[in-house]
């Protein structure tokens, strides 16, 4: 294993992990980084700088609910006849590190359990006749590839540090350096360095209670959180803790500007929902901040200057020393533009390399209840089987046929056998792709918005989800990631820009990617609802290379055909809703439907309800 000290670069991530080692109450560190970059190396090396004996538990993505939370240890229970409890992964990580690779691919029920454990510091086990509380106070270290999808905000909110995604994180290139360096170094040096680092962290832990932070400093941090539109109060606490830990690492007893800068960089900025400009402090806080998921998309359009700045914030400014504010702004400005560029870079790289191999199909569902069944027809639910057999043991023992059996043996008859029934919780994901180009766009968008809202109103019944992709100009854009929330849909679809070219291929590609991500999260049924006249005129390349030569009509058609074929082969259903007036149509939309193996609906002046009806009828 490569030691923590041998890893070159990744300075910010390393710093973040060291702060966590100093103050585990920071909750954890999330490191977004490109796939295959060896990001897990760093996370695993982290255990090397923690005190001896600190648990380090890696969470497999396909973990089942009972392994995660804990439950009955079947073998031991059978052997002893007394219920024996087996602790889950969450409680095994107690006092140490829970490491999750590909955090964004973890299924949503597992995420919920982790969130719950993190907010309680313990796991409540109320399963299969068990009622226990297991301590589960752990640091969560998670790595993920942003192009695999987003991590649920609720979980990120409980994790103190999010390392901003920068080119630095992609240390594929640095691996080489690591290797060459390793060749020259001897193990003793490494060990010495590691020991030194451990000593440093230990000293910092002891220093931590003696570090103080002034009220002005706390206020400045909170002010920054406000102007960045960070949701909730947890981040305030994390920022303060990070600043204190940073000062402790430097063996200081006071928090200084550099500590605050670091705290802002790794706690607040990654959660920003808007970017303040120089005058940003004068901005009154927004009631409903825009979503934090897509800072790269929001930034250019974020209403940076709201005219009604008021006297109240001027007052607040007086309270905060100017110098600190300057520093805050520096931290923000030097950090931000880079990240934004790099986030979009990640998806570019991804898009060019094409498909990432087949989507995982882990339709495991959720163990709901046990039902009588054949031993071989499914997973045997042992406890319910035992429960049903237990009361009859004495009666059966008295039975002559069983006379030869040892007294302690359990007599289980065929009727006792219960098998586990799983339920695939997820319903259908409807991915709306709305043509926002041209003059009819406004109308189409309104209809799509209505259809999305209306589908979501009823989504709870089937656990359906809805996503919306709009395409216009050079490339398509996910306006609403798969969601069940009416509130969120309403908010995110509030402003819908229209006009420009028709990047149909880009929309199909993005839809396909969204579908694949959803599949890895256990949503199996996916339906595309395309609201378009089917006349794409912008190629895929345009999204990544503004100077790309405009492809010929034939090329465009080939692109669409190839994409449609793959989408169809992945078992994604599709309907194409054509809202164009008849006399304008040149028959592209029916062709598109055919290529996708879907159905074509001609609904000029369609009402939202008609679109919903069409989508549900399929």
């Amino acid at each position, binding site marked *: 294993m490569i030691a923590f000290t041998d890893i070159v670069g990744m300075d910010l991530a390393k710093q973040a992990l060291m702060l966590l080692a100093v103050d585990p109450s920071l909750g954890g560190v999330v490191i977004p980084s490109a796939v295959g970059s060896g990001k897990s190396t760093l996370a695993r090396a982290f255990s090397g700088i923690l005190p001896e004996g600190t648990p380090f538990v890696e969470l497999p993505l396909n973990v089942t609910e009972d392994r995660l939370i804990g439950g009955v240890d079947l073998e031991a229970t059978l052997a002893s006849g007394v219920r024996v409890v087996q602790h889950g992964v969450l409680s095994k990580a107690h006092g140490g590190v829970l490491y999750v690779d590909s955090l964004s691919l973890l299924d949503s029920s597992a995420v919920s359990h982790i969130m719950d454990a993190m907010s309680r510091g313990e796991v409540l086990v109320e399963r299969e006749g068990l009622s226990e509380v297991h301590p589960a106070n752990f640091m969560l270290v998670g790595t993920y590839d942003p192009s695999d999808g987003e991590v649920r905000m609720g979980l990120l909110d409980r994790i103190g540090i999010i390392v901003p995604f920068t080119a630095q994180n992609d240390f594929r290139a640095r691996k080489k350096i690591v290797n060459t360096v390793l060749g020259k170094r001897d193990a003793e040096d490494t060990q010495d360095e590691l020991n030194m680092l451990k000593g440093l962290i230990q000293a910092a832990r002891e220093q931590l209670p003696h570090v103080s932070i002034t009220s002005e400093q706390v206020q400045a941090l*909170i002010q920054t959180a406000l102007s960045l539109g960070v*949701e909730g109060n*947890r981040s305030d606490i994390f920022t303060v803790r990070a600043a204190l830990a940073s000062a402790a690492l430097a063996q200081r007893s006071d928090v200084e500007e550099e500590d605050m800068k670091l705290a802002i960089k790794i706690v607040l900025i990654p959660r920003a929902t808007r970017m303040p400009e120089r005058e940003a402090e004068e901005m009154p806080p927004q009631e409903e901040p825009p979503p934090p998921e897509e800072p790269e998309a929001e930034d250019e359009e974020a209403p940076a200057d709201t005219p009604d700045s008021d006297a109240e914030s001027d007052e607040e400014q007086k309270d905060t020393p100017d110098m600190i504010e300057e520093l805050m702004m520096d931290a923000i400005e030097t950090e931000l533009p880079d990240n934004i560029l790099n986030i979009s870079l990640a998806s570019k790289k991804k898009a060019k390399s094409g498909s990432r191999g087949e989507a995982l199909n882990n339709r495991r569902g959720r163990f709901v209840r046990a039902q009588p069944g054949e031993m071989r027809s499914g997973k045997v639910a042992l406890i319910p089987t035992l429960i049903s057999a237990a009361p009859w043991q004495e009666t059966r023992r008295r039975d002559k046929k069983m006379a030869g059996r040892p007294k302690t043996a359990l007599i289980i008859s065929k009727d006792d056998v219960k098998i586990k029934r799983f339920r695939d919780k997820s319903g259908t994901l409807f991915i709306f792709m709305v043509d926002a180009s041209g003059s009819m766009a406004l109308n189409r968008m309104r209809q799509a918005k209505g259809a999305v809202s209306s589908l979501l109103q009823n989504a709870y019944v089937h656990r359906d989800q809805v996503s919306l992709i709009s395409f216009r100009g050079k490339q398509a854009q996910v306006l609403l990631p798969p969601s069940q929330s009416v509130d969120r849909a309403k908010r995110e679809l509030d402003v819908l820009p229209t006009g420009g070219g028709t990047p149909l291929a880009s929309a199909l590609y993005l839809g396909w990617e969204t579908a694949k991500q959803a599949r890895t999260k256990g949503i199996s049924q996916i339906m595309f609802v395309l609201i378009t006249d089917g006349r794409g005129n912008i190629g895929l390349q345009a999204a990544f290379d503004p100077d790309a030569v405009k492809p010929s009509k034939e090329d465009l058609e080939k692109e669409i055909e190839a994409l449609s074929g793959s989408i169809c082969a992945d078992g994604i259903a599709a309907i194409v809703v054509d809202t164009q007036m008849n006399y304008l149509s040149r028959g592209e939309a029916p062709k598109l439907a055919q290529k996708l193996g879907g159905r074509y609906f001609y609904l000029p002046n369609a009402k939202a309800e008609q679109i919903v009806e069409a989508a549900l009828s399929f």
Partner: protein
Amino acid sequence: MTQTETAAKKRTAAKAKAGSDEPAIQEPKKAAKPAGKKKSGLAFPFTAIVGQEEMKLSLILNIIDPRIGGVLVMGHRGTGKSTTVRALAEVLPFIDRVKDDIYNRTPDQYLEGEDARKGRKAIDPESIRTEKIPVPVVDLPLGATEDRVCGTIDIEQALTSGVKAFEPGLLAQANRGFLYIDEVNLLDDHLVDVLLDVAASGKNVVEREGISIRHPARFVLVGSGNPEEGELRPQLLDRFGLHARIITILDVAKRVDIVKRRREFDEDPDAFMKKYNREQLKLQKKIQQAKDLLPQVTMDDSVLTDIARLCMNLGIDGHRGELTITRTAHAHAAFMGDKEVTMRHVRDVAGLCLRHRLRKDPLETLDAGEKIEREIAKVLGEAEAV
């Protein structure tokens, strides 16, 4: 209701099926806590929570009158939703229950329940001993299985002694107390079904593994969640008496205060608890006084008329809206030490009672709270003033 009927049918069927060698059903005598379950660490004191008055008030009103029907707390992440609910336990009053009763029953309920079971001698009411316990707060985690929620056969007893004993679930523990579900909008459908059934009937009926048990399960349902994570099933939404909304505090001074108190608590929980002890006791006493005052609180018919008009103008279906406002306003008046409910009390709680009962219009831009406030102003004839 239909679900209750189905359950009842199943029960009869189960009885018919039961053969002659059916092992005896025995109930555990003690409400012993299962092994391994221990009280978790100190909770942040309720009175030290900064802001979020709406949520705090709705919880308190539910303690004063549990018939209000619980509260749903929805809002932003990291705003202290679960901290507040978990802090509640410390300010709750005490209740009397039959000693060691696993269902927390009152002597009357106990008599009713035990007499109903055939083949038993009538119990002498004099022989029942009671004890005082704090109002229970039971946490229902998302990963709970149905058998732990409803209760099931005690497998250890069954295996070792062949006796079918009932091991009560969380619903039994929550009787006459609070049942709290964090991330309630993510709760599995089959558990939601169970909850709806029990909440409607106030009884938990267990028909499984050859056990047939019926016990009272009346609790104040408290749910919390973030609306961005998903929607709540409408039937469940409707079950909640109150709906408190919670948003990120934007006041810097308050946020500084939150951070300070949190740090203080983390550094020395015991000292922090001590610091707030007086306020905690004061609140607990105030709640108890309100509970005692509640039966004496009256409301003029004119206020009731105004409430009805308000609900009508807002287009609220059914009568649960009026009923909830009336009860909640009574509790609120009692909490303020008033013996007479006025429109001022109604105004304070109308948003809480009605927010989730308004028809959902996807294109509505006006906030539900504002809409309710506007209608109240109209009902009070203040429309011009607003």
